[in-house]
């Protein structure tokens, strides 16, 4: 119970600050929609959407030139807020929700070249020149950019494991009955 309460509070605060930030940007920027959309994206600039970064995707979205389903790390949560903003119904039937993953470096294969560190836009990889590198799983958002630059294929993606605190009840099967 306490946990749920605190998470709500945290969410309230974060949402509040997003709104605050959005209001600030709205006052100075030329295209408010673009800025608002940008604020909804994860901001990790990972490029998995096919654009250079989140801002470019936001521009395309604002011009209605891109579907709302391209942000992989954002997942369903981002699609839903984008859908609401754009006033479209999100067709999630075609969207295959990727199981959240995090990068994992196989110790024995890592040669400590530091290339992956430079690639990670959220500083999730720790390590120094010629030393073994590790990924901080909590910070990693699964963009897979580090995998592409590793010369020894030392990085693999692992699904984020289900824990006792993240597990929850599935939908009841008897569904046809409540009106």
């Amino acid at each position, binding site marked *: *119970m*306490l*946990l*749920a*309460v605190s*998470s*709500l*509070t*945290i*969410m309230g605060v*974060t*949402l509040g600050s*997003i709104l605050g930030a959005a209001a600030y940007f709205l006052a100075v920027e030329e295209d408010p929609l673009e800025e608002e959309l940008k604020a909804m994206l*994860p*901001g*990790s*600039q990972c490029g998995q959407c096919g654009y250079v970064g989140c801002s470019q995707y936001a521009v395309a979205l604002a011009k209605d030139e891109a579907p709302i389903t391209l942000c992989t*790390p*954002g*997942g*369903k*949560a*981002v699609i839903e807020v984008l859908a609401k903003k754009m006033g479209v119904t999100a067709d999630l039937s075609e969207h295959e929700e990727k199981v959240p993953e995090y990068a994992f470096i196989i110790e024995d294969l890592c040669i400590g070249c530091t290339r992956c560190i430079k690639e*990670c*836009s*959220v*500083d*999730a990889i720790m390590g120094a020149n010629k030393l073994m590198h590790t990924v901080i799983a909590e*910070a990693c*958002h699964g963009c897979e950019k580090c995998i592409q630059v590793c010369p020894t294929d030392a990085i693999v993606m692992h699904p984020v494991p*289900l*824990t*006792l605190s*993240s*597990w*929850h*009840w*599935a*939908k*009841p099967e*008897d*569904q*046809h*009955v*409540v*009106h």
Partner: protein
Amino acid sequence: MKLFPIRGGIHPDYRKELSSEKVIVALPLPAALYIPLQQHIGVPSEVLVNVGDLVKKGQMIARSGGTLSAPQHAPTSGHIRSITDIPAPHPSGLAQTTIVLEPDGKDEWGELPAPIVDPFTADPHTINERVAASGIVGMGGAAFPSAIKLNLGTQKKLEILLLNGAECEPYLTCDDRVMREHADEVIDGARIMAHALGVHRVVVAIEQNKPQAIDAMTRAASAFSEVEVVGVPVQYPMGSERHLVQAITGRETPAKKLTADIGVLVHNVATARAVHHAVRFGRPLISRVVTVSGKAVREPNNIEVPIGARVADLIAFCGGFSVEPESLVNGGPMMGQPLPGLDVPVVKGMSGILALTAAEINQQPASSCIRCGVCVTICPCGLSPVDMAAFIRKDNFETAAKLGVMDCVSCGSCSWLCPSHIPLVHYFNYAKGMINAQDREQRKIEQTRMLAEAHALRVEKAAAEKAAFLAAKKAQAAAASAAKEKDGTPA
């Protein structure tokens, strides 16, 4: 004492007589104990022992993993056989890290922290520290680390410590027996907690269907003017914190607030007894009383169980099953959770193990809602279950949240009474899980954004520094060559 009415509620068949007259007996030490690192709300504890180690009874074998966590202690002396992943006593059956202890049969105590001689003059901080180090968590089922709740005394203005002895769930009798047989220990623990919290009033609330417990507790409390024992009406879910507080004080806890915000802190009676043991004798929480009941169990009983004994050991102690149970429940039949099997261990928050027959659960296929409105009338939280379920069926969690699904205490009254047998509370558990998962996702996205911004700033700064460095070098070189030129100029 004047009591206040609570809204709604139901009167299920209590079936407490199956075990209520059984005196608490100790479970003989099983061949192995399985002590999970996560028996509480919060982060798992961290292992302190190695495979092969000899540990003594009461020795800390895993320390608290953070602020919101609790340590684990050896329930008896013996060797650490392994540290491995086994299914948790949780509906998911997910595996979790567990310390396996092989008792050596000597049941030999290790060195314990010294008793706190006069707890009522001790610094509250000393008591909180002892409660934290003793691994005490809420034993009514929530398993929230107790020391954190005791610390609330320094953060909120509290008036009443409410000791919850309502035990409103059918079948369960462990709190009843603890109050009947150990009333002095419970009252002493409660008074110690009240001192730690800085409150001057203790109210013990017990449902009126437990007259012997009310008698025993009243007698034990008679010497202490600050303690009052109150019989409350038999009305499920009286034992829900918010409802009990309302019945005693008339105050309603606002949505998204804690009872502590309106001046009342609630603790379970078994937790109070554990505090008594920890403070007076330095003994950590290594056992608890569990009710084993249900008509599929040959001899229902109340058993003092070392933490980590398997559910199978308890069932065997009760003579096994008389018929194949239709369902196995951890806790009471209303709010309890299905057990994934018999091989899971008993944990600190486990008050009951029920093996129920098909006749007892009377499960029937759901049919269409007839809009009778019964669920709305009886919801003790004033919600409209029928409407919430309709939106959740369409995965419209936003509207369900607006209708208050997060305020639902999952008491199950609506499901229990629904003439169409619609699994209403299952819908609400599902919705609460989904809403929490969405919150977590949102927070992750927010965190990613923050980290990415910090990264961009750092890269920018590094680039600027590099540019400045290069510019300075260039300027230096230019100055040097200018000087050289000057020097080289023939006079």
